[in-house]
């Protein structure tokens, strides 16, 4: 087995505006099972950061415990990282974000790490609108402990051992919308064409962005009867739209037919171009997406694409008015302005 990736690269590998190739955004060779959907998501994060010309040192990769949470080793090896306790990634990211809002936070989590042990953490990160990209690598099972059903396994989905799941699965996207998430998307690890622009838009979004990515577990949950297998997801995938992310640096020369294309402007001027497939749905309308999600569940469909976005999102730091300067660069006299200021401050409450 190879433990090292050869240092060779294609001699004509394209470079981005920073002069980096994708190689500079990669990590070490994956130790996940061969064919794991998570590796495709890692590769999509690499693609998204490369294409957005993000300097790797400006990113903090946050994770908890699980197969999913191992992946930050496999992408962005030149970025910051924090591998936290199981399910505690949202809290650690919230703290990090408040202490230093200048970094780009990419959290990766799994269905166990998010929907079971980390559920209490997850929902508060959503409602606080922490400015981060939260990627759930959702395979519907506990891969690290031999494939038991997880909280996102669909009711009736058959496990590798042949048993049907008797509990309702948690729909993370519906839950996040309910809790006030400002960017919610769903995708499939086997569809990079859709996933990469979704990650790019999520990173650009000003606030909490959830991307729930169905990511088949090739070892324990890729069997017939599973609703998270490659074959099942491909057969039941209903894309709401064809998404294209247009970064602000690219001059827009075409005009769009707005009856079939939704153009959503983001806070920094980037555009999300959605070629709508489903007519009843509007990405700015919560009700329409909640209905669509319920209908999809009833029809055994998996809705993918950008589900909901709030263009007027105000992220946590702006909500509570934190300082723009990272705390670790604030000088002593700013952090501790002296007894005179303290007296004046206490005096306000006298």
């Amino acid at each position, binding site marked *: *087995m190879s433990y090292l990736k050869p240092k060779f*690269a*294609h001699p004509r590998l394209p470079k981005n505006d920073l002069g980096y190739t*994708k190689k500079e955004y990669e990590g070490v060779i994956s130790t996940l099972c061969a*064919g794991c959907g998570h590796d495709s998501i890692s590769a999509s994060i690499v693609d998204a950061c490369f294409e957005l010309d993000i300097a790797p040192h400006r990113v903090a990769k946050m994770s908890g415990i699980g197969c999913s949470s191992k992946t930050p080793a496999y992408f962005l090896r030149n970025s910051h990282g924090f591998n936290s306790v199981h399910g505690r990634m949202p809290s650690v990211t919230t703290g990090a974000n408040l202490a230093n809002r200048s970094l780009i936070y990419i959290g990766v989590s799994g269905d166990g790490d998010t929907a079971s042990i980390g559920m209490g953490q997850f929902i508060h990160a959503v409602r606080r609108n922490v400015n981060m990209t939260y990627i759930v690598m959702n395979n519907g099972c506990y891969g690290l402990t031999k494939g038991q059903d997880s909280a996102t396994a669909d009711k009736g989905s058959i496990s590798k051992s042949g048993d049907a799941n008797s509990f309702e699965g948690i729909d993370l996207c519906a839950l996040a919308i309910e809790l006030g998430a400002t960017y919610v998307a769903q995708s499939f690890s*086997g569809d990079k064409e859709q996933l990469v622009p979704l990650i790019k838009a999520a990173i650009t979004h000003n606030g909490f962005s959830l991307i729930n990515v169905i990511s088949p577990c*090739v070892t324990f949950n890729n069997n017939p009867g599973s609703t998270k297998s*490659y074959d099942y997801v491909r057969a039941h995938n209903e894309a709401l739209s064809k998404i294209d992310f247009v970064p602000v640096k690219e001059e827009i020369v075409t005009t769009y037919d707005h009856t079939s294309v939704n153009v959503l402007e983001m806070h920094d001027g980037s555009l999300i171009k959605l070629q709508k497939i489903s007519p009843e749905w509007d990405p700015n309308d919560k009700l329409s997406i909640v209905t669509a999600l319920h209908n999809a569940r009833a029809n055994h469909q998996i809705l993918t694409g950008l589900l909901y976005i709030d263009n007027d999102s105000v992220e946590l730091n702006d909500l509570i008015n934190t300082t723009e300067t990272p705390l670790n660069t604030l000088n002593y006299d700013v952090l501790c302005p002296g007894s005179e200021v303290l007296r004046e401050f206490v005096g306000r409450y006298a």
Partner: protein
Amino acid sequence: MNSTNVKDPEYFHKVVDCQYACPAHTPVPEYIRLIAQGEYTKAYMINWESNVFPGVLGRTCDRPCEPACRRGRVEEEPVAICRLKRVAADNKDDITPFLPEIPSIKNGKKVALIGAGPAALTVARDLAPLGYHIDIYDDQSKGGGMMRSQIPSFRLPDEVLDFEVDIILDMGLMTHFNHYVTSLKSLLNKDYDAIFVGTGAPKGKDLHLPGRDEASANIHVGIEWLANVAFDHIHKIGKKVLVLGGGNTAMDCCRTSLRLGGEDVKVLVRSPFKSMKASPWEIEDAMHEDIVIHENHVPLRFEVENGKLKGMYFQRVEAKYDANGKRQLVPTGEPDVFFPADDVIIAIGQENKFEWIEKDLGIEFDQWDMPLIDEKTFASTSPKVFFGGDAALGPKNVITAVAQGHQAAISIDLYCQGQDIHDRPDPHTNLYSTKMGIHEWSYDNGIVIDERYLVPQADKSITLNNIKKEVELGFDIATAFKEAQRCLNCDIQTVFTAPKCIECDACMDVCPTSCINFLVPAEDESELREQLRVPAINDTQELMVSEVLKTGRVMVKDEDVCLHCGLCAERCPTAAWDMQHFIYNTAKAGQMVFS
């Protein structure tokens, strides 16, 4: 666009760039792996089977394999294939147990070989084990042809050449040395069943400029002069020597001159330095011995005083290229240059010599007085007479002569057995998995970036004073191992089985050189080439296109910079990718024809 037919052995053959580029198609990665394993005798025998003179070629080959080497495309320098071959030759054990048995009862067919150079010796090597009676004629006193007369012993020691020539001569050949064949007709009148002409290109081109005849005592034709040195007829040369020409013979002449008393040896070439015909490493070795090369000098006349050569005049030119890229050497207008000289050696090319072939034998010649030869069968227009080596299609190199010798031997055998010489035997090919465990392969797939290692040379103070002292010392075992590890094992093929693929993208994500793509099928190949993650602009390298997969896409792999590292297969959950050992051995005389 149709999927690629990888069942055609030529597809994977082309992926093994070195082997494909080699005229004899020597299985290069195969023997390099054996060198890394310390199996020098086996590595030598693989070479011997294929190219007959591994010791000679490991020192003197033109190495068409090296510019083709994949390392050169993914790194900078190719693997030192040629010098690794020498390692096998230098470190082998006794090979006699592995040599073919020569039947004591012959098959009743008699073949005459004219010339005892690489082509004819290859024919003998292939036919003698089949029971042919072979007569070999050569005007030199020993076998080897141009390998003996034109390659100086400081590049190719006599004992190395003798060893490999003698293996063949010892196969029961009837040798007729010091025997110049003056008439092909006389041989045809004997009871030979077939005749092979491997007489090379033995005539050095002369330069008929003013003063040539008066000063002929000090003006030499390169290959004749080298032959006279090789056979001990010439032992010295003047202090000031001018060598005319920019090919490998010129490089050998100037370096030989240095060893025979030349002190101020210059090489003069008509063309710019960068378009010299000599191999870059030959030029490098000459310059290492402080030879000065003057480019853009066109010889005008020999300066003679009292019947004695004084030097030579040259015109200064520069290369101009017209719209079609055609080169012209245009005088610069500067005054002519005079170089004093005690001796001048003319090394401006060589030609064939066929006066000894009567024109009424049914062997047709073209307008340049070259025989009309079938480039596949090496048959002439006379059914009994075959050609090979420089005599067949003009001067090339040893490895080409060997390759042609093999083909001619096949033709002679088919002809003598009453079969159609156009029904050629197929190559021996095989393809089998190297999988040893879940992620284990039977080859070393861990590849690293590593610079090409230099072959050490003996000190100039020793080599320049002894013409017999070999300049190159060859790799030591430790360096040979490191150099052998640079080989990318291109013969371990990435074989893709479309129905097994679940399109998880793992191979595409892990591929270090971004070769693998999953795309919507395109109309034609050029369209597909542009759509790859890194567009495939190297048209000399194939695309491997799979059958249509479940999602309607196809897998497209650009063979150009594939490292054969096996990561695609290691990361494949369904073994749709497998690393398979591809074997391709060109057919030899006596092998069955299945058609």
